[in-house]
């Protein structure tokens, strides 16, 4: 297998944001078995090394395509864009204001006597926002509007970070 090919080609998937996750999982399983390093023991060092490299490539490919955020970033990277460039710090003002409010809300949670209902409500809100941004990305990308797609995926990155932060806090507070 050519491990320099892009991940969509590797799984014979169209290069779109909407992909069939069932097909992805199925192709991944087949390829994973086919190139499992255990099957190449005794085939010589070069073959063994290749099997290990292929497995690493497949793991990376699957992790990238199965998560919407990473899939979106990857689609733009294939077009030569760099949506996560650390030097690009411009985000829509209303979005940043909302981000600060959400973070203030998360900070408040540690001071609330019974934070569980608030955590649940916030988790639901973040999930709704994430899903909306995935729709925005999908539509913009399908319409070749790559700049709006980039904005959507950059926003999604902030939301996913917040979700991780909230998960960590939930673990701390509700244990």
């Amino acid at each position: 297998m050519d491990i320099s090919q892009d991940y969509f080609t590797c799984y014979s998937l169209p290069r779109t944001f909407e992909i069939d996750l069932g097909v992805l999982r199925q192709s991944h399983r087949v390829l994973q078995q086919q190139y499992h390093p255990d099957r190449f023991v005794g085939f010589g060092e070069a073959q063994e090394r290749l099997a290990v490299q292929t497995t690493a490539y497949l793991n990376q490919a699957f992790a990238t395509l199965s998560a919407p955020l990473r899939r979106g970033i990857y689609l733009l990277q294939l077009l030569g864009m760099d949506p996560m460039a650390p030097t690009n710090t411009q985000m829509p003002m209303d979005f940043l204001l909302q981000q600060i409010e959400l973070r203030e809300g998360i900070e408040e949670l540690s001071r609330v006597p019974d934070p569980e209902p608030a955590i649940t409500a916030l988790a639901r809100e973040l999930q709704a926002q994430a899903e909306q941004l995935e729709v925005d990305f999908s539509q913009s990308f399908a319409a070749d509007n790559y700049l709006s797609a980039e904005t959507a995926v950059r926003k999604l990155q902030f939301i996913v970070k917040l979700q991780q932060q909230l998960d960590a806090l939930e673990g701390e507070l509700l244990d």
Partner: protein
Amino acid sequence: MAYSEQVIDHYENPRNVGKMDEADAHVGTGMVGAPACGDVMRLQIKVSDEGVIEDAKFKTYGCGSAIASSSLVTEWMKGMTLDQAGEIRNANISEELALPPVKIHCSVLAEDAIKAAIDNYKSKQ
């Protein structure tokens, strides 16, 4: 990764955390965000009629380096003219805080926040 003493000092004792009235014509507000790490920074300056920065406040949600970078620049900016503040570069910040290469983007965020605050102030005049 180990933080430098300067970063830890600013992180544990951040200077000038707070908020100013955005509607005030003397106040310039800069907001920037870094998707790669999910950091959000708000930097505000209060400018006198003579064009000197009298006060600066920040609020940063992010890692220690991002907080230290914004805390440091609020200290630096007080007493500067807008032109002087506009000359602060991320290299000055990362050098002062001894930021490692993976954290240079935090100082870029602070530099961009300064520019955004100055632009916002000027747009109100």
